[in-house]
């Protein structure tokens, strides 16, 4: 278990250069090294942080099979992670042995690959066209990082409340949401884009009702006129925002995830303990099998 039952996590709100793996890897290494100086044990980057987001046909050029020699390109990240004894979550275009492409995020911890999350819900409406290029992932995994249970949800994954439901019931203490969310919609009297407002409400709800830490890491910058809305932030299990980065500028912020506080919240309000998974299962089976609810 961690010292003081806590873990120091750094959120890196970056502006990836579209299509430039090499440059983005260099930038990641620099940020990881800086975060280590601040005592970080884990650094989290946005969705597709190594490639940029609106990739279109260049998905084909950027795919990496992380289990083969193709992953050599990621060597600087493996090395930094090993040398600095630190964990890194970053986004990349993953290619599998059958040449399917995924919008994926790896977790490399102390020089070893310990998790890959393949984005499940691929938005393909409005300005989004992910399903045109990517294959959906098939689950929401939870993995152990020095005794802390972590689940990664990528952007739209989190908009489906079933994803965080699955993650916490599988044991997640921390839900990490990495995203590349475009800034959109304005409202009179509101000092943020409508899109970020929806995000903050959602993340607060997940944190409070699923009694978890929720870490949101979004990117900034522009791709063909579409700007990303930053605002990376941390919600504690009380649903409170603890820290937040600027909506439009690059930056990093560190936070201590305190498992004693999580313990305290889960004891006082045992929503996860009381969750009736069998009832949910029964209802979902009924929906899936009959298409109706009794």
């Amino acid at each position, binding site marked *: 278990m961690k010292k003081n039952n806590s873990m120091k996590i750094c959120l890196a709100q970056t502006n990836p250069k*579209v299509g430039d793996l090499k440059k983005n890897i260099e930038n990641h290494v620099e940020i990881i090294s800086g975060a280590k100086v601040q005592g970080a044990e884990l650094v989290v980057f946005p969705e597709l942080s190594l490639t940029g987001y609106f990739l279109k*046909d260049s998905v084909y050029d950027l795919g990496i099979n992380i289990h083969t020699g193709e992953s050599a390109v990621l060597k600087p990240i493996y090395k930094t992670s090993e040398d600095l004894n630190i964990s890194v979550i970053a986004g990349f275009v993953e290619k599998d042995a059958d040449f399917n492409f995924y919008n994926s995020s790896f977790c490399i911890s102390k020089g070893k690959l310990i998790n890959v999350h393949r984005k499940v819900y691929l938005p393909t409406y409005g300005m989004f066209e992910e399903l045109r290029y990517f294959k959906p992932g098939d689950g929401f995994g939870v993995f152990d990082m020095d005794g802390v249970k972590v689940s990664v949800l990528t952007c739209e994954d989190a908009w489906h409340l079933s994803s965080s439901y699955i993650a916490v019931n599988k044991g997640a203490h921390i839900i990490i949401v990495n995203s590349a969310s475009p800034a959109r919609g304005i*409202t*009179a009297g509101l000092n*943020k*884009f409508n899109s970020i407002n929806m995000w903050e409400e959602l993340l607060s709800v997940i944190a409070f009702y699923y009694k978890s830490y929720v870490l949101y890491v979004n990117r900034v*910058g*522009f791709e063909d006129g579409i*700007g990303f809305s930053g605002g990376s932030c941390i919600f504690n299990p009380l649903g409170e925002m603890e820290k937040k980065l600027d909506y*439009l500028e690059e930056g990093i912020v560190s936070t201590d995830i305190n498992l004693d506080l999580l313990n305290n919240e889960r004891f006082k309000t045992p929503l996860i303990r009381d969750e009736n998974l069998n009832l949910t299962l029964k209802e979902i089976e009924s929906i899936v099998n009959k298409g109706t609810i009794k």
Partner: protein
Amino acid sequence: MKKELPKIDEYNFPLIYKHLSNFIKIEVSKARVNSVVLGLSGGIDSAVACYLASNALGKENVTALIMPYESSSAASMDDALIVVKTLGISHYVIDITKQINEYFAKEGNSGDAEGIRIRKGNKMARERMSILYDYSYKLNSLVLGTSNKSELLLGYGTLYGDMASALNPIGDIYKTQIYQLAEHLDIPKNIITKPPSADLWAGQSDEKELGFSYETADGIMYLLIDKMYKPEVAVSLGYDEELVDKIYGKIKKSQYKRRMPLIAKVSERTINIDFRYLRDWA
């Protein structure tokens, strides 16, 4: 549910200002240049674009071209010069009267007066575009667009004329919101209060020509476009049916102006059809 065009106010202005400044800064640097050139008419749209660019890139990286024709109002020139002076940016005044008149002298003024007037207006807009793109090369600068969302949707602009640019910071902002933005940018009052005009001929008025006010049109377009409501829904919310139909018709009819030219598909991979990359690809 929100049914009214959102106002740019003191709460959201700082964010929008920063967002649009970042857009200009980042997209200009991706083109590996530092500066922009834009046509300054003396009207509110180009003034707003100019203020945004000057904030984003610094006054030394913005050049304004003032390109009057003989019928352009003297007040427009004065207002453009006020913007130049206030921001401290460099500018050139290039009169386009000679080349326009020479061309139409050869063409002859045959045909109906209305047709000639429109052709002249289009020719002027394209002449200005041609000069802007020449200066784009000369000054190693990108051409900054100054068309707002209202005129882009209504097709109230000249294809390959004033609609042409490399970057447009205000193309997703309705005219009504441009006024609000201008107030917060502290643009000289006179530019904000005068009636909107393309100033292609003496006394021209956008709203007279269009037959409706921007405020009403923007309210309707916000529902049709931003909210994706069907015209009958806009009518059910209290808008005049005839006007809704007219505006929807204008939007549909001008779609060609907002797209790249059609390319006949012959090969297996065709530009903009299934050869798909960002402009930022490079």
